[in-house]
């Protein structure tokens, strides 16, 4: 059975599972680690590369990432140099399909006059071409193709370049926002996120069955769509599995989202213009590229950090591990105002690897309830959910339209974020609240999701409606009663 959309995720998962297994057995010795490559790539025919020795060399690079990666490179996302297949970088190319037509749409649309017709065929002058791709779009024979590396194409902040000598992908750390788009889109799996799976397992082992301290798992609301293609695996079974690997308690990040929605509504009324702060890649994107509006980023913690803060208030010796679809959350954890609350960040891929390491058969498990948040907190998992929740919070706080009218702009994916932020930075944005989600579709489109299916959004909505708390105020009312 496969849990993933593609075989690259599967391969990464096999390595993470082996490492998690060794970590649970407390046997992460050099000898055992060196054996991982030949366990994953046994003797015989090569499955993916030229030979098994290259395959094993790549597995060793993955093992390094699984153990936390290059300590000298602060970026959470790293290129696996041996795995990078040096994809062609020819840019815009005229293929044999060019019929030498007489319309010359390609030449006429080119803004740089880079196309000339030579011997009844289009020819692109490389020094003039800016690779805008318009010629490829207008050609009636699809004879012009855009050969851009998938990683470069996936990176919308232009953080990936190609080393001239080695032809390998290079990530510019000062531009990268750790969104993980390249990790998901590289067809050779040559870009990977650093993993803290061994730290998490050590935390679990040293807790000694939660007797020394308790470990809390905060799960992102997109958990409900991870096993979309395997209906036998219900969310409540996954909760049981998380407890079986050693967590004391599993709590919905959506409860943190309820708290954030209420606070964000208040802040919005007070400040008059705000961008959301839930998506860490979006926050980093603003700081790097639109510093003039950084002051308008909501000062609230993200739902993860907000809930972790509350848990630490309740249980100061407890440890908090966030499990979600997001690679940028690993970067968020390092922030000064977050690091004291969140002890470790894992992805759903890493969670599944831990299940595998513990040989947990999800389908046959009993169910454990998961019900901490309202519908509104839960729908933060998809684009537009945050805006709905803030609108609801304004209503619940009895803010009249005379007092404040919320004009939200939902930005689904980085391109829409870019347009909105550009307008805002020039002072020409008519809306007063920007919901920014860097991943397409919101968190359900995150790079470390097991499923990227069209069913995911509906699954989140259905799950949202099952929450017993119907309003944000009711969901967070418990915190008015405690800490008296």
């Amino acid at each position: 059975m496969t849990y993933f959309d593609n075989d690259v995720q599967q391969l990464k998962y096999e390595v993470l599972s082996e490492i998690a297994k060794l970590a649970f057995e407390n046997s992460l010795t050099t000898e055992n680690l060196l054996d991982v490559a030949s366990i994953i790539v046994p003797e015989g025919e090569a499955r993916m590369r030229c030979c098994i020795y290259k395959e094993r060399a790549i597995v060793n690079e993955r093992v390094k990432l699984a153990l936390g990666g290059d300590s000298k490179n602060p970026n959470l996302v790293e290129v696996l140099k041996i795995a990078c297949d040096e994809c062609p970088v020819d840019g815009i190319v005229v293929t044999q399909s060019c019929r030498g037509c007489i319309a010359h749409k390609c030449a006429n649309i080119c803004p740089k006059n880079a196309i000339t017709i030579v011997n009844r065929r289009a020819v692109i002058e490389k020094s003039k071409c800016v690779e805008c791709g318009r010629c490829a779009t207008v050609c009636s024979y699809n004879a012009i193709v855009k050969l851009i590396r998938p990683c470069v194409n996936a990176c919308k902040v232009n953080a990936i370049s190609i080393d001239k000598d080695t032809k390998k992908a290079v990530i510019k750390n000062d531009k990268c926002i750790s969104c993980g788009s390249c990790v998901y889109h590289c067809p050779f799996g040559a870009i990977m996120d650093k993993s803290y799976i061994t730290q998490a397992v050590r935390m679990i082992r040293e807790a000694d069955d939660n007797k020394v301290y308790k470990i809390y798992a905060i799960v992102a609301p997109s958990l409900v769509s991870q096993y979309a293609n395997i209906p036998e695996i219900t969310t409540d079974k996954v909760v049981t599995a998380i407890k079986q690997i050693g967590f004391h308690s599993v709590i919905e990040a959506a409860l943190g989202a309820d708290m954030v929605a209420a606070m964000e509504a208040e802040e919005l009324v007070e400040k008059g213009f705000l961008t959301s702060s839930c998506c860490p890649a979006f926050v980093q994107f603003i700081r790097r590229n639109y510093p003039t509006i950084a002051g308008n980023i909501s000062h609230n913690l993200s739902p993860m950090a907000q809930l972790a803060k509350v848990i630490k208030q309740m249980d100061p010796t407890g440890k908090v591990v966030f499990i979600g679809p997001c690679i940028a959350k690993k970067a968020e954890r390092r922030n000064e105002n977050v690091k004291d609350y969140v002890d470790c960040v894992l992805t759903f891929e890493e969670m599944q690897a831990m299940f595998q390491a513990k040989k947990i058969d999800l389908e046959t498990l009993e169910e454990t309830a998961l019900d901490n948040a309202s519908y509104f907190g839960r729908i933060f998992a998809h684009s537009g959910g945050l805006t709905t929740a803030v609108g609801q919070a304004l209503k619940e706080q009895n803010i009249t339209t005379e007092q404040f009218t919320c004009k939200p702009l939902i930005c689904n994916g980085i391109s829409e974020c870019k347009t909105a932020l550009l307008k805002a930075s020039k002072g020409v944005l008519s809306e007063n609240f920007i919901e920014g989600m860097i991943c397409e579709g919101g968190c359900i489109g995150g790079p470390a999701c097991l499923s990227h299916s069209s069913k995911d959004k509906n699954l989140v909505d259905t799950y949202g409606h099952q929450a017993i708390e119907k309003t944000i105020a009711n969901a967070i009312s418990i915190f008015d009663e405690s800490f008296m």
Partner: protein
Amino acid sequence: MNIYVCIGSSCHQKSSYSVMKEIKYLIIENGLEEKVNLQSAFCLGHCANGITIKIDDEIVTGVGMGNIREIFKTKVLDICK
């Protein structure tokens, strides 16, 4: 004295938020704000036994709106007075 009310998923579904509110009300009604500290906890580990609360080190399970007043009287009020 410390009272912890479990607000984990299982207890929450059985209405532990109402129990929490009731205990807060009883604390105020009996003027015990200075003596009793009320807190919530994410799971006291007795999910199968109804709503769970912890009074100092004693775990009390099967708590509900029907018996919370009596539990409060014997385990909190009588001891605090």
